[in-house]
């Protein structure tokens, strides 16, 4: 396991590496504010229940309120993080999750200890100790996280990109008629450029026509700078068509392209 500035990279026993993106101090602070509001809301419900008891015994009402608030403050994080697999309402809203620092399943003892350690993290007020620790530590951990060996990660629910939406193989790709140049393009293309081309093609209908022309001109120039195809091959290709063809080369194999073009 290694920690980069914004992620913890874990290598599984099977040799697979994956990164857990760490939550920043601002996101954690916002989650804390939402949780404090939730605690206040639960507290107001508690007060209403206690008021019913108060009709019989004001002493019992005050005792129930004091103990109830204390239990809510201590138990809120523990109960929610246990039931919701490392999330409180605040963390859920901001897509944050408490994880074991080794990427393993979170244990109840880890959840309880990291929450009980708030006694020190909240010192001397407004979570100053915890906040400073999050800012200063490599894995953005407050003291409770360090003791419990937990981290808080940013867990965006990512959607699987649908390459088929682009219909990359709908038309003949003239660039593939020069296989060695196509292979070189595929070799030299960078992930960033593929991502740019992919997103631009997906959003082409949202762009103003002059902006669209400019975007695809710039993209096509970048592809052209990687590999120079003969003019007779590229003649008549619009910039957008050029980008589409280059992307098809990047994402599909020569054999399947050949197979598709024959059908």
């Amino acid at each position, binding site marked *: 396991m290694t920690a980069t500035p914004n992620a913890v990279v*874990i290598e*599984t026993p*099977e040799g*697979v*590496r*994956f*990164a*857990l993106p760490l939550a920043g101090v601002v996101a954690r602070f916002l989650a804390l504010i939402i949780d404090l509001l939730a605690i206040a809301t639960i507290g107001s419900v508690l007060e209403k229940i206690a008021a019913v008891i108060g009709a019989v015994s*004001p*002493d*019992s009402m*005050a*005792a*129930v309120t*004091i*103990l109830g608030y*204390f239990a809510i403050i201590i138990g809120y994080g523990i109960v929610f993080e*246990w*039931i*919701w*697999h490392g999330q409180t309402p605040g963390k859920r809203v901001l897509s944050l999750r408490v*994880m*074991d*620092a*080794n*990427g*393993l*399943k*979170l*244990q*109840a*003892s*880890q959840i309880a*200890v990291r929450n*009980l*350690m708030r*006694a*020190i993290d909240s010192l001397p007020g407004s979570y100053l100790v915890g906040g400073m620790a999050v800012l200063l530590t490599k894995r953005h951990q407050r*003291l409770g996280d360090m*003791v*419990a*060996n937990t981290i808080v990660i940013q867990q*965006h*629910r*990512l959607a*699987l*990109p649908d*390459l*088929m939406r682009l219909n*990359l193989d709908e038309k003949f790709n003239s660039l593939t008629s020069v296989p060695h140049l196509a292979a070189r393009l*595929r070799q030299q*293309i*960078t992930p960033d450029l593929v*991502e740019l081309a992919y997103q631009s093609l997906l959003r082409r209908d949202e762009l103003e026509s002059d902006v669209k022309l400019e975007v695809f001109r710039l993209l096509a120039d970048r592809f052209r700078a990687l590999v120079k195809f003969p003019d007779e091959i590229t003649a008549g290709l619009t910039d957008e068509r050029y980008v589409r063809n280059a992307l098809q080369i*990047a*994402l*599909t*194999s020569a*054999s*399947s392209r050949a197979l598709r073009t024959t059908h």
Partner: protein
Amino acid sequence: MILDLARFLNTERPYWEELNELLDRIDRDRFERLTLQQVTRLEYLYQRTASALARLSTFSAEPKTTEFLESLVARAYAECHPNRVASQRFHPIHWFFKTFPRTFRKHSRAFVLSVALTLAGTAFGWGVIAADSSAKSVILPFSQLLGSPTERVKQEESAKTDRLSGKKQTFSAQLMTNNIRVSLLTFALGATWGLGTVIMLFYNGVILGAVAVDYIYAGQIQFLLGWLLPHGVIEIPAILVAGQSGFVLASALIGWGESSTKRARLRSVLPDVLTLAGGFGVMLVWAGIVEAFVSQYHYPVLPYSWKIAFGLVELTLLTTFLSRAGKV
């Protein structure tokens, strides 16, 4: 090496979606138990997705899919790989009567350190007040302890009304929550390599010593014992246990003479410090009840001999419990 990314994605996609769905289901319901068939399927899907991620990583032209698979594998990895021993069902009775005293004895050296520091503080507080009684206002945090002990005893014994009438439960709740809060801090300060815990225990001892010497020098030993013993014999050991849990934590952080990593040491003591924290919490609930309902009532309402005897019985039971309970 993936030759045809589009075809590869098309083939693998249904497995990733199935894994995503299964993980969402586990996320939604904490209490749902997967069947053996589902667990086997989860393991298979995880292995397949991890393998896809490994293959896709060599094909750097598809970062979005790699990112998606990383998040999926991370979620599945946590579900498929156990963290130390499997969680056991929590049995409160077994925990309190067996696990807690066993854990207490397991870390008896940390408890002895807590006792030693508190005694050092007591001696210091005793010495300071014995040398200069005006230092009371500096040392003692509670205004009700600053007056003359003799005056207080006279007032308490001649009281015609119950000053806690109609607010005993509230007072008890305040004592419980305040003592638990202070004890939690004593425990949590173990994260400062034990330094904060040392200060808390020493200061607690200073207050105890200062109060004790004040009443003893005023000739009010009987009142002092009758007032402090009923709740103090539970409350003071509870704070010592809080210090003990702080030192267990500090010891794992420092790791003198240990060859294992800090992370491994902390992981191994977490259940123990949690047990000790739960133990002192229960003790302080009892102490809070006794302090509000017994300790605050003095002669002639409750005879001192009765209160002292009650305290001694509690102390005997607590000592027996912590030293004998849970032994096989």
